[in-house]
């Protein structure tokens, strides 16, 4: 039993560390630590830096320009990325539709879409959920009818994250309604957001941000060559992708970074108040979250060890999602509580002083979403109960 890295892994760690130290632009670094949403341009600029370095397709196979990293290397990378507080990669292209296309897509689709995804030339969004189909995704109603060489798509997708910036959307669409199981007859379509009949309506979240959208499809014509894999098999492809989404949502190292920062903050006096480090109640709560996080980190390592020895990630990804998001929210709560009255101002205001303090509550509110999206935590528990416990 050991968790030491090989010489090669340590050398890799050094390389990654150096990269984040030297090539992570100060301007973007400052924007991320301000706590405000990262502007689209900076997001793309950062992803292009990763692309230039050859590190955009972390999970991608080398034949498609991916890193081909071992699970341990991915782990090391994630840790350094978290330590550097680097921007969160917009997952829809690189982590979601990319893997679906290189796994299930045609050669033509691979050639057409993958290079632009890898280089962050195109912005993608995810069109799964609908007003009537959230947790029960298989009840989706957006419909595709084959007319000549086009799928004609009608319906409404919702909660589409950053859809306002997207060039493309990947959608689950019902193409056959006469099926034995509702999961059948759903297809995976790639839709150009500039197609006539697509309209994007903003949904404002409780913290006032425009992060998600409702997207309407009114007789949108989608060329047949934009169907991924087989007609009616989209659910299977989509599920592969969801498991990725769940493992990614553990965010262990970002949580570690935030807890470390909070400890640093607690040791200092903010606005002349006594340091929070003197407040035993607060520090005990902080320590309790650190314990949980350490547990999660080792659970992730155990999953990693299993994956390294050839086992596929299964329902355990649900565990990582639940714990990871609970810890994120616990940290958000600590930050907000640390700010006391200064969590109240709605926007960072120079006259109020510490801008980051005033954003703590907004983050706390915004990240209530973490236990709702990517399959709510209740749904994850249902999955574990059924598939792990056999209940």
């Amino acid at each position, binding site marked *: 039993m050991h968790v030491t890295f090989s010489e090669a892994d340590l050398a890799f760690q050094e390389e990654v560390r150096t990269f984040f130290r030297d090539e992570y632009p100060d301007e973007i670094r400052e924007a991320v630590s301000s706590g405000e949403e990262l502007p689209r341009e900076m997001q793309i600029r950062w992803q292009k830096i990763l692309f230039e370095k050859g590190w955009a397709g972390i999970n991608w196979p080398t034949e498609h320009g991916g890193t081909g990293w071992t699970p341990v290397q991915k782990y090391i990378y994630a840790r350094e990325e978290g330590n550097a507080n680097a921007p969160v990669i917009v997952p829809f292209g690189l982590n979601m539709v990319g893997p679906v296309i290189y796994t299930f897509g045609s050669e033509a689709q691979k050639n057409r879409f993958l290079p632009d995804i890898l280089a962050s030339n195109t912005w993608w969004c995810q069109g799964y*959920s609908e007003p009537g189909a*959230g*947790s*029960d995704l298989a*009840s989706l109603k957006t419909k595709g009818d084959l007319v000549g060489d086009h799928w004609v798509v009608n319906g409404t997708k*919702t*909660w589409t994250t950053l859809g306002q910036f997207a060039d493309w959307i990947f959608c689950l669409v019902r193409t056959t309604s006469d099926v034995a199981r509702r999961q059948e007859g759903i297809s995976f379509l790639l839709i150009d957001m500039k197609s006539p009949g697509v309209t994007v309506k903003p*949904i*404002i*979240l*409780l*913290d*006032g941000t425009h992060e*998600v959208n409702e997207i309407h499809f009114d007789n949108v014509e989608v060329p047949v060559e934009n169907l991924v894999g087989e007609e009616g098999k989209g659910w299977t492809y989509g599920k592969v992708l969801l498991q990725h989404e769940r493992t990614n949502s553990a965010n262990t190292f970002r949580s570690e970074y935030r807890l470390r920062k909070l400890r640093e903050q607690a040791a200092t006096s903010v*606005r*002349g*108040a*006594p340091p929070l480090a003197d*407040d035993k*109640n*607060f520090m005990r709560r902080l320590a309790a979250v650190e314990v949980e996080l350490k547990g999660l980190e080792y659970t992730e390592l155990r999953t990693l060890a299993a994956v390294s020895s050839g086992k596929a990630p299964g329902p355990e990804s649900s565990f990582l999602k639940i714990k990871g998001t609970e810890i994120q929210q616990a940290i958000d709560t600590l930050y*907000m*509580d640390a700010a*006391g*009255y*200064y*969590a*109240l*101002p*709605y*926007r960072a*205001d120079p*006259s*109020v*002083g510490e801008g980051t303090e005033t954003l703590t*509550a*907004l983050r*706390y*509110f*915004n990240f*209530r*979403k973490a*236990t*709702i*999206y990517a399959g*709510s*935590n*209740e749904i994850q*528990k249902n999955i574990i109960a059924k598939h792990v416990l056999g209940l």
Partner: protein
Amino acid sequence: MDFSLNEIQAMLADSVDKFIQNEYDFDTRQAYAESDTGFSADVWSTFAELGWTAVPFAEDDGGLDGGPADIMVLMQQLARGLVVEPYLANVILAGGILRRAANAEQKERWLQPMIAGELHATLAFNEPQARYRLTSVATTATRDGDDWILNGCKGVVLNGGTADLLIIPARTSGNADDERGITLFGVAADSDGLTCNAYATYDGQRAAEVILDGVCVEDRAVLGEVDDGFADLDATIDEATLAVCAEAVGIMQVLKDKTVEYSKDRSQFGVPIGSFQELQHRMVDMLMACEQAQSLLLWAVMANASGSEESKRAVSSIKYLVSTAGRSLGEDAIQIHGGMGVTWELDVAHYFKRLTAIGTMFGDADWHLDKLASASH
């Protein structure tokens, strides 16, 4: 034993309820919250006309002679409309000080116009370094002939931006954090040397950072005795704590009701989500939290009204419950609403935000639990 409302309280509850039903729907509230001042001057006049601004004051001062129970009834009803008009700042906070400490001339100058809805006032009880310590008063007032010169900062002053009158606790003697040596001053907002940076708070309300840079006031600005303001300040904050707890209990009930209703309407997997046992149990927890909160609130209000020695303990108890159970109730309400719960469009998120703000106000859960842990029973 009788926990029912008396006739006047029932009338008060009824009139606030009618007002919210008829004139204060959620969209209206949002429009007021987003207006320049953050509330409606017309609505405020209505509050004054209906006598709501007069509730806790003596009849001789133009008040209705109401007590903590009446305020509880009123706040619990106002909560249902998420009312943004500055009732807490004017009537409870500034009013609490004026009622206790103002002399006849000051009452005529400040309290009566406030009750009439013609003058806005607030109490700047907090300083940037204070966290929740009321005694942390670093703002100073020094003698200058017959006048006083005030210097310092006040933080997150509720409705500071629209107040005509700011009540400023300032240190006239003693050390930082001493109870003794705090004096209360009534300071006009347009005084030379006073700067007020107003901003919106996340719960749809307004606050301000106030800087006093050599502000000169006459001796008649002193409310009560020099050096002796703490007792009035402390008693006022206890009352204000009860008032926001009453508001919080009202909000908790609304959130519980709305969540239960939503869970019956929203279907997934072909059944209402309210049929899932996991969610049912959480909604039962919400109900139990509401009942516990309502009970502690009544205890605290009665203890406070009778001036019993349990009063402080009762106030900290209900505040602790509101900060903890209120938080988890609010979080569950959002969670059970799914994606809808985190939208600006739905009122649920706004109730949750106000409940969160109240959780912090006048001391968070840790603060009050500490008080309870160290209090001798």
